[in-house]
């Protein structure tokens, strides 16, 4: 059992949780993920590690309440425990030593993962710009934190209710056009966003890393559910990723495969939300 030691709502649908898992905190690195299972009947759900504290022995996760599993997780409070919490999984983000200037791009809850990447690069002495995209003002998260670890922070909203109106790719294109020379772009967010970031950087030949979130069951290199096509070859996100070269990823296939259980997930969510009021037992 893994105890929740801190919980904070970042907005109405995004929650931060700090979980006691000293053995994971000891080894976790940016870009890796954990798998949680709330209770015996729950699914195994992968989440990228948002932060870790080696001394306190805690791992921070930030998740959006999108389905039955994240709803059940969100119903737990400080002092409660998660049944299973396993990691660190996947290959840590690899940044070449000759990279000097980076643009980190986050979309929605993906900013929760883009932020620690920006922080790590900033702390390593790199020049970091960040473009953080949100649907609207009320779901903006981690603004102060992101500002503190970046040379420039650009907030974009779809509806213009905060920051600048537009997509992250509009801002990226603009920054490239005015002559910013990035050695690396890191994009973390919805697949469609990562696809268009990669399409934006490709003509300029800017190396682009994306963090993929395919369907996964065990997450340890056994089930093969997380297979993605990268450079025309089959890769497994759990052991070969989750970071991949954005110019090589078949994003359309990934988006398509991620829809497989949409209907059943909807039913499970309905079940958890309405029939049981969020609790599994009564």
């Amino acid at each position: 059992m893994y105890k929740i030691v801190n919980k904070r709502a970042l907005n109405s649908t995004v929650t931060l949780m700090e979980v006691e898992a000293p053995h994971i905190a000891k080894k976790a690195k940016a870009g890796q993920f954990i798998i949680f299972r709330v209770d015996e009947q729950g699914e195994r759900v992968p989440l990228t590690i948002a932060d870790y504290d080696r001394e306190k022995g805690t791992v921070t996760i930030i998740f959006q309440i999108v389905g039955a599993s994240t709803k059940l997780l969100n119903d737990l409070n400080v002092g409660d425990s998660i049944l299973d919490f396993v990691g660190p999984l996947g290959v840590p983000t690899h940044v070449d030593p000759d990279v000097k200037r980076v643009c980190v791009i986050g979309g929605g809850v993906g900013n929760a993962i883009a932020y620690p990447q920006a922080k790590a690069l900033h702390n390593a002495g790199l020049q970091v710009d960040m473009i953080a995209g949100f649907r609207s003002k009320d779901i903006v998260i981690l603004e102060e934190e992101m500002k503190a670890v970046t040379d420039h922070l650009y907030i974009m909203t779809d509806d213009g209710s905060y920051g600048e109106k537009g997509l992250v790719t509009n801002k990226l294109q603009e920054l490239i056009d005015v002559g910013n020379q990035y050695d690396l772009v890191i994009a973390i967010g919805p697949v469609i966003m990562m696809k268009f970031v990669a399409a934006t950087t490709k003509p300029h030949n800017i190396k682009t890393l994306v963090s993929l979130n395919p369907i996964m069951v065990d997450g340890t290199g056994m089930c093969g559910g997380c297979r993605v096509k990268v450079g025309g070859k089959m890769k497994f996100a759990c052991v070969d990723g989750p970071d991949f070269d954005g110019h090589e990823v078949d994003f359309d296939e990934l988006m398509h495969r991620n829809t497989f259980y949409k209907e059943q997930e909807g039913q499970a969510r309905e079940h958890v939300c309405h029939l049981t009021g969020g609790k599994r037992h009564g």
Partner: protein
Amino acid sequence: MANMALKKVPMPEQAPDVRNKNFAEVAEGYTAEMAMEEASRCLGCKHKPCVSGCPVNVHIPEFIAKVAAGDFAGAYQEIALTNALPAVCGRVCPQETQCEGKCVRGIKGEPVGIGRLERFVADWQMHNGDSKVEKPAGNGHKVAIVGAGPAGLTCAGDLAKMGYQVTVYEALHAAGGVLIYGIPEFRLPKDIVAAEVGKLEQMGVEIKTDWIIGRVESIDELFEQGYEAVFIGSGAGLPSFMGIPGEDLLGVYSANEYLTRINLMKAYKEGYDTPIARSKAVAVIGGGNVAMDAARCAKRMGAEQVYIVYRRSMEELPARAEEVHHAMEEGIVFKLLNNPTRIIGDENGRVQAMECVEMELGEPDASGRRRPIVKEGSEFTMEVDTVIMSIGTSPNPLIRSTTPGLEANKHGCLIAQENGATTKEGVYAGGDAVTGAATVILAMGAGKTAAEAIDEYIKSKE
């Protein structure tokens, strides 16, 4: 005088058209009377050919003699001397190619039902026997085991019996490996696996689930923590796919994923959140035990049509004879000498059909089996909405890539000697991580052999 009946005492089973709709165990097990009657078919051969066919050297004629005499507790003690998981072996071993394949009674008639008797004894012990397991006196040495599957659990049990303090690290949330994520409930009930694991824990074996060796700790770090030897039984690894068009369509699974969703994640049970395809027509590609398990699960999940598509003939089919027999009884259709060439999707990218070609057998290939050759112009299409690939696996790269000095062959399988010793001192390995996908009992045999080698290695350092 031995019972000279030519046939085994029949195993009580759920009727095929009943059991193919539920996940309860197919074979219901012998009663005490049936077991004693079957045991009396054993001739008690002095040269014990059956034992030579057993990877863990179960004292077969000895335990059977005790069953025949009605001394079931004594029979259990006899089996437990060499086999840490008898309730499992009695159910899933390919006896026809092992102990029973060597049985003298099999020359004329059916061999003695050794597997059924082993199962009976293990089940009897579980229900009637003294469930308390003595914790052996410690010898002060620590061994770490990576992976709580058949190889790791067997190695752990044998080392614990010798007095070693054993910790088993398991990546999944439950111990058992393929016994819990792969082999279905109807062939191996999970409470039996849990009971066997519980016995190991009573012997003092510590099992740490949710623990990824290679990430949380490297093998070298385990040595730094005071373990004097490490056994790697990390299993078969990632599933292979055919590389044909359409494998990215919705409705294409690896057998590993399909079985994990159903067995480990209990997609068949009411109240569990695990999603799974609600299939009507399923093609399982491959002819091994895993393919049989996937096909029989698909039938139980409600599929109307389930096919095994295998590129060779019935003769080469590698699955255990009983599984093939049970699958056929349950209405699984065997499309032999057929090979998929393409999976076809509908407008939503879901599987709609599969194109196959017919095959014929040519000259024997490197595996000694006759090589299947495509019959030109034999393309045909099967209407299916789910395709399950069960054509093998390749080892997980995690441990070999994080352990300097640990070498693997070109397929990624760890290189190990006969006794399990790898290319790194103090590190032993066995099971599918070494051999590639094989059977539970071979993995157990490897775990057993490695336990002896580890004992010798640690003693030699003193």
